[in-house]
């Protein structure tokens, strides 16, 4: 019997704010959905759009990016760069037919463990409603179609 589908969300958290907030959520023993896998980056400004595309291409159902609040970046303004890039990423995803809710950027300060819990839970539920994205599967189907036509 195949296991029931569970959303898989790759989260990129900046070291100073959001990663620390997730640590705080842990220390506070807050409970949230186990569907995220955190990749630590020093700054949300390190977010290369390719990371997002790669995550989707490898089977992620959602991507969450967490950075410091505007004005609070440990590196002065990396989060603004992240915001600019995020807008572009979303445009590309839209072109690809990937729903907006699957990619989310959140400002979460080191003190906001509770926000980590809320955002993760919200996102897992939203993605669950959207269902599996399964880009690798779709890609395989397209390949088959293409080869059938060839």
């Amino acid at each position, binding site marked *: 019997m195949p296991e029931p589908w*569970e959303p*898989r969300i*790759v989260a990129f958290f900046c*070291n*100073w*704010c959001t*990663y*620390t907030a*997730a*640590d705080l*959520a*842990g*220390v506070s*023993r*807050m*409970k*949230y959905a*186990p569907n995220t*896998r*955190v*990749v*630590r*980056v*020093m*700054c949300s*400004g*390190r*977010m*290369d*759009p*390719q*990371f997002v595309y*790669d*995550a989707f291409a*490898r*089977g*992620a159902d959602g991507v969450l990016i967490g950075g410091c609040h505007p*004005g*609070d970046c*440990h*590196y*002065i*303004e*990396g989060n603004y*760069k992240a915001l600019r*890039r995020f807008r572009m990423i979303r445009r590309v995803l839209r072109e690809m037919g990937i729903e907006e809710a699957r990619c989310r950027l959140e400002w979460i*300060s*080191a*003190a*906001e463990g509770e926000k980590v*819990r809320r955002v993760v839970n919200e996102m897992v539920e939203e993605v669950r409603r959207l269902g599996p994205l399964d880009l690798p599967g779709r890609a395989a189907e397209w390949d088959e179609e293409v080869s059938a036509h060839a």
Partner: protein
Amino acid sequence: MEHRADEPRIGVYVCHCGSNIAGKVRVAAVAEAAALLPGVVVSRDSKYMCSDPGQEMIQQDIREHALNRIVVASCSPLLHEETFRKATERGGLNPYFFQMVNLREHDSWVHEDADAATEKAVDLVRAAVRRVRFHRALEKTEVPVHPDVLVVGGGIAGIHAALTLADAGKRVYLVEREPTIGGHMARFDKTFPTLDCAACILTPKMSSVKAHPNITLWTYSDVTSVSGYVGNFKVVVRRRPRYVREDLCVGCLECIDACVYKEGRVPDEFNAGLGKRKPIYIPFPQATPQVVVVDPASCIRVKTGKCKSTCVEACDRDAIVFDQKEEIREIEVGAIVVATGFETFDAARIPQYGLGVYDDVYTSLQVERMVNSSGPTLGEVRLKNGSTPRSIGIIHCVGSRDQKTNRWCSRVCCMYSLKLAHLLKEHTGAQVYNFYIDIRAAGKGYEEFFDRLREEGVNFIRGRVAEITDWTMTPEEEGRLVIRVEDTLAGFVRRIPVDMVVLAVGLEPAHDAQEVRRVLNIGCSNEGFFMERHPKLAPVETFTEGIFLAGCCQGPKDIPDTVAQAGAAAAAALALVDAGRVELEPNTACVVDEACSGCKTCVALCPYTAISHDRERGKAAVNGALCKGCGTCVAACPSGAIRQNLFEDDQIFGEIEGVLVHA
């Protein structure tokens, strides 16, 4: 491309952390799954990886199994990454051939389902295994540390930190916003639980600050910007004009007598509004520096230019200069101690307690001044009508432990309320009632002080006061203030008439804590106090290396704790500047020349101007000393020509692949 160690031979260590991880994650299963991953030579689980035997195990395995990559799956890297890097290094490997997995804060502690938590753990370990193969040997980078230290805030915390550092031979800049140092402590009468006089402890320290050859004291000044990095901060300080030359004024106070205002008109800040001062004033007799100050908001000369300026004439040293301008000073320091203190809760926010409505309702700070023999009433406790109170109610927890105001316990109010109860009883012989929710007397000699107060006949009523009212029911209540409270230990509601009410106001972050935090690039906890890096492991450090915390800016605390923390912050700053050099995380960026097209996209992006464009070679170049390792340029480079050490593209792609590929 540099040489990469041959075939990866990876050791994976899954920590139980007692039951912290093993209680939810099936650690043995994780280790078994890891053993099957490509490149993994050794995979073990162990009770406590951070313990000596745990670290020893890593070192031994490196030697025995010729491991060249290490993955430890335990707690947050912010806690123990350094520990395991060192263990890796002791085993004979470059310490950066190590990757850490956070199974505790990010997994076992936050999930309820053991299957899901175990599955997540396996995913995270797989990601680390895939990532660590791309790690490379890195050189530690070291930078020199500037030996001077900046202390921001001149309360007891800042004073103690500054003196400690100065005594150790360091040059210290002490910057204080007010015209004098001393902070809140200078306004207290006695200190608990020993009842020694606050001024007797504090003022000698204030004088030492002024006299110390290693301390530069700048009062009436603000830190307006901080740039640079650990060991090498550039700080801009704005010195506001006090219209009095510090180098000339000797504090004779002739000018104050000569002011065109014959009486004080402005509520006196130092006396919490109980007295009045003139526009030219000295905050209190022992103010440090002993220099008067002109308040631009009330001085006619400053406001309109039209005044006889009798103060100027009265000064035989020509110290009063109305054309004084603000001065900007730039300094370089290696470390910063932040000791910006607190503010007290504004009790008018709780109208039920009648501050500002009824004459004889006071804040605790006002009462500190009232019982002080050099305060506005010269130590006399008198009601507004001139009589001595026969009964006094002290209300604890005003603005604290309340969802509608501040949720936290302010820690000091119980003890200072006991102290005020003692002092008020001593001064007036009145019946004193303390209304408390819980008495928090956890400190050396504190419980004994509480015992003493009960023996002295102070009444303790366990109940939070709902209201102070002049609604009277009985003849004895007429003309007095009635306190409505449940005596929760007796189990009924009481109405207690008193003549005077003292509101034990709680402690809050300073109103501009958020701005200060931005200037310093440090964090705040939810309630607005500055956040320490770790409550136990790094209690005076912040997330910005080289910046340390002391005193109530980090959270409410009493004087003994404040001084202890100030000492700790000074020691931490000293350890940094005394070493003379500091090791930086080698997570800097570097340009791969062959790939760089010289487009200059990165140059403008760098917030630290660490990237320059070499016109001759037509390539960008990163100055490793200036780069702080955010990685923004790496993500932006259209040719993928910039690499960030420890966060290389391959490493991150490896991690992404690892969490998504099902083994």
